[in-house]
């Protein structure tokens, strides 16, 4: 099992949700986060000087999936989250040891 952790633009969330649904992936955890990438945020130029907004609001989606599904879902996320401009985000894939359903105690690994 793997966890796909995708940090994307907030305004692309609905598209990514839909794309995951189309792949049959319904379960997910979504949280608002702030962050920055290699560009250190956005710098705005003014006559009075520069304002640097270094932490930009993003949304983090976490889904836990079978190993075989990982690439397919990553493609779906990338396609739905992409605008082609700086700041489209990152995807990380992490190993997951076990997954337990609280109501039934059902385990997967």
């Amino acid at each position, binding site marked *: 099992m793997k966890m796909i952790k995708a940090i994307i633009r907030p*305004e*692309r*969330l*609905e*598209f990514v949700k839909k794309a995951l649904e189309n792949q049959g992936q319904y379960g997910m955890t979504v949280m608002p986060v702030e962050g920055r990438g290699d560009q250190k945020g*956005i710098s*705005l130029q003014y006559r009075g000087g520069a*304002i640097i*907004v270094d932490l*930009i*609001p993003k949304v983090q989606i976490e889904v836990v999936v079978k190993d075989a599904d990982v690439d397919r879902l990553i493609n779906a996320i990338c396609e739905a989250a992409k605008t082609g401009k700086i700041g489209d985000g990152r995807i990380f894939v992490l190993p997951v040891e076990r997954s337990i359903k609280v109501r039934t105690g059902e385990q997967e690994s």
Partner: protein
Amino acid sequence: MTLDTGTTAWLLTATALVMLMTPGVGFFYGGLVRRKNFISMVALSFIVFALVSLQWVLFGYSLSFGGDIGGFIGNLDFAGLSGIGMEAGDAGYPPLLFVAFQGVFAAIAMAIVTSGFAERVKLSAFILFALLWTTLVYDPLAHWAWGGGWASVVGSLDFAGGTVVHISSGFAALAVAMVIGKRSGFGQYSMEPHNIPMTLLGAALLWFGWFGFNAGSALAANSIAVNAFMVTNISAAAGALAWLAASWYRGKPSSLGMVSGAVAGLVAITPAAGFVDVGASIAIGAIAGLICYGAMLFRLKKGLDESLDAWAVHGMGGLWGAFATGIFATVAIGGYSGLIEGNLNQFIANAVGALAALVYAFVVTLVLAYIVDRTLGLRVSEEEEYVGLDISQHGERA
């Protein structure tokens, strides 16, 4: 005539009540935008209030209420408030109080227009636009209706500013939205209101302040003021429930719909408040709620980003109110008959007054917005819009 303390006290109070409506518009709109533009939205209303207050005493009042030039605008005799005395005139209160009372109306009109600028306007360009708009759109319209201009000569009835304040600002917001363009991403993903309770609070301030707006427009503490007070409340209540019911029929009874309906009812009763009875105000408010709800759905279907629905609620609600005044006016309340009492002329006069103001406000706003856009540029850059106006225009975070 000596100073009438009752009238003077009431007009002072009403002026303060109407003042509260301008930040009220700010909070109403502020709750509806995304959080990154919350401060900007509220600040625009405050900026308008400060700016128009100064413009008003320097020359705005004189352009509206100075000696008539061709039925179109006032002259500059009262510029800098020269010749505005402290002695109570025939009306029983000092003319300076009339200046203050009318000034808060001018401010709220421009504040309503900020709907069309939401989440994408450059502050410096906005300030220039606001100054031009209040001078070249609001002041002439106020003169037409109340300053001895052609609309008052034709006999178009506008008790408290349905045409002057609401039709003008609503249709101006539409024109602004067309010039400035859609918000980046509009129509691609949902831009949910970030704080509905803030909007409800703004609506409460508006409803409260509207008692000063309408009952104060009697310019006396008398029975007309009492009638205006009552019909204002009833029309708001009918509008709130009508829109609530309509949104319930189509899905959930949204609280935002309810307060939008209340504002629609308040807008529609504004020109009528001194001329219609309580029974008519139920119909005026309820129909206003439905018309404005329909206008909002139409606006969304057309993909127009008049972002916070000033056009649907103030523009269309104001238009309905102008017609409704010509329909429901009754001799028993204000001494004028409307269509129901068989006076077609009143209806025609009102329709002419409203449509002329509509066309004037829309066209002149288009031109002004276009000029400001071509010189200073109305919009912020794409990056500034993306991080939000709070940070990019004010350097602050809500």
